[in-house]
């Protein structure tokens, strides 16, 4: 389990003279579900395409199962890709699409038929063998694309925002289905998305990227609860990010108030980013509060209300199951464990 199936070392990639990956180091373990998460232009798709062999890195090495595979063309790599817009073959039917890779390997016909059938069953498309591609819905095309890649029994499956074109409900279904497939086949999935919820739902580990650099690698829980910096905190879920000063270990000042906290190891009076999740701010009576503010607006979000508060110039977002009346003064409280102190990011 702890074996590295893919290792990237010092990967530098440029596109039109612009650096999109800047010295990337990354190890991906066998049989894990890894997600590259980041805003567009962060280099996540480029990284995936380097692993797939569609882009040659300018510098750095790619290792597959311990062997260097720089310069190996895509058709000689033991990885398969599910493309963003499926890229199914329009001149072939569902069966022929899925059988494409096997036919190239000159596998006997009966064996191909068996494998394709098995794979279509896995993606819930039994009986669709002779359908033409344009008769399928987006979700079905997606399943064909997944089956077409998986039937080759790759050690690693690369998925480039495969659910981007589907509606929300279908996307959620497919997320669970992908996870189920990954666990039943025990192969490595490398998944690219800009959707943080998708990343948290499916992944064993998430790699958060920004402008060609890795910001944080960790389990979804780590990334959410212990973001490495304000960028990660902001990108993974909503956050209140405020400027603060770390007076000494376990004591931080922000919004004009001193708070106890659980972080240490900063310099005396160091400028820091303070990150507080909206759901970690509790609304309390004003006389018991650490902070006060005027309710600016209340938006119903289904599970919770999103309350925007103006605390003497400092804006706060609170998620609460109780609504508040706009215009009233409320008190707010945060427990020390919910105050996350981060080093200022150099821009």
């Amino acid at each position, binding site marked *: 389990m702890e074996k590295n199936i893919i290792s990237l070392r010092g990967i530098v990639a440029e596109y039109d003279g612009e650096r999109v990956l800047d010295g990337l180091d990354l190890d991906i373990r066998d049989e894990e579900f890894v997600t590259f998460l980041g805003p567009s232009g962060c280099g996540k798709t480029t990284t995936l395409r380097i692993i797939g*062999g569609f882009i040659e890195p300018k510098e750095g090495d790619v290792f597959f199962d311990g062997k260097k595979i720089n310069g190996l063309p*895509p*058709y000689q790599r033991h*990885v*398969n890709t599910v493309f963003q817009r499926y*890229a199914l073959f329009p001149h072939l039917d569902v069966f022929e699409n899925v059988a*494409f890779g096997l036919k190239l390997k000159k596998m006997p016909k009966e064996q191909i038929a068996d494998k394709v059938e098995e794979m279509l069953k896995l993606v819930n498309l039994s009986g669709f063998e002779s359908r033409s591609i*344009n008769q399928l819905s987006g979700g079905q095309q997606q399943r064909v694309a997944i089956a077409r890649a998986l039937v*080759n029994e790759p050690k690693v499956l690369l998925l480039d925002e495969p659910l981007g074109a589907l509606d929300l409900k279908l996307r959620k279904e497919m997320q669970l289905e992908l996870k189920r497939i990954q666990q039943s086949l025990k192969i490595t999935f490398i998944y690219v998305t800009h959707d943080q919820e998708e990343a948290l739902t499916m992944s064993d580990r998430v790699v958060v990227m920004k402008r060609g650099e890795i910001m944080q690698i960790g389990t979804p829980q780590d990334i959410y609860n212990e973001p490495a910096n304000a960028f990660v905190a902001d990108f993974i879920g909503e956050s209140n990010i405020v400027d603060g000063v770390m007076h000494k270990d376990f004591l931080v000042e922000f919004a004009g108030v001193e708070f106890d906290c659980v972080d240490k190891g900063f310099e005396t009076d160091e400028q820091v980013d303070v990150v507080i999740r909206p759901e970690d701010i509790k609304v309390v009576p004003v006389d018991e509060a650490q902070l006060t503010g005027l309710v600016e607006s209340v938006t119903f979000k289904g599970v919770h209300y999103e309350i925007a508060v103006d605390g003497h110039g400092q804006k706060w977002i609170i998620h609460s199951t109780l609504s508040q009346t706009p215009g009233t003064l409320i008190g707010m409280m945060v427990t020390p464990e919910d105050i996350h102190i981060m080093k200022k990011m150099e821009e």
Partner: protein
Amino acid sequence: MKMKYAAYPYIIWLIVFMAIPMGLIIYFALTDASGAFTIANIAQTGRYMPVLIRSIWLATISTAVCLVLAYPLSYMLSRMQGLTSRTLLTLVMLPMWMNFLLRTYAWMTLLEKNGIINQILGVFGIEPLTMINTQGAVIMGMVYNYIPFMILPLHSVMVKIGKDVIEAAQDLGASPASVFSQVILPLSMPGVRTGITMVFVPAVSTFVISQMLGGGTNQLIGDIIELQFLGNAYNPSLGSAISMVLMVLVLLCMSLTGFFDDDDVEDRLI
């Protein structure tokens, strides 16, 4: 089904420019000078069988040459960046904006016994070649004039083949040769069919090219037809009969090679 009023102009257009002329050709082909029904005209076309066969043969060769030349060019054009591709495509089209006769005359002066090519060869001490008034010159004239009609449909089909589909094939283990035979070729077949039709049909019935570049010895069926209408052999009935036979033969050839079925491949691409 309800007829839409908007379709009427097209129906009138079709009647005036397609149905009526077609009817006239059939009428002339099946009547004699006095207007009585006869199949003598059709029977007479048998005399021109060798010319007909030569026309089909030369048109087939020209179409094949066009395809071989245009296919790689179209593919390269379709894989280029937008601006480069558009510029090169315009260059391909550019000669078409020049008058057809003028272009063919230009080739006469190039290919003549003491034309430019032979003069240049003479500088190197090479004996003048006989190029004009040969079948080769006719084929070359056809290829030169009709190749844009091969490039355009091929190009328009090939630009629709997404880069991602090609990458998907590579990803699934296809070598460059397999990518071509398994993906690019089948996906470009609609363009190949259209291109062949668009080159073969005008090539088989051309008359100017054969007259100007082929001399008297390489008469094509188009020349014979022209003679019946504009030449001294004036006989519209025979001309119509030959045209009809030619049309039937072309339709027959194409339906035999399956040109009219499988149109859905094109739909699937879009």
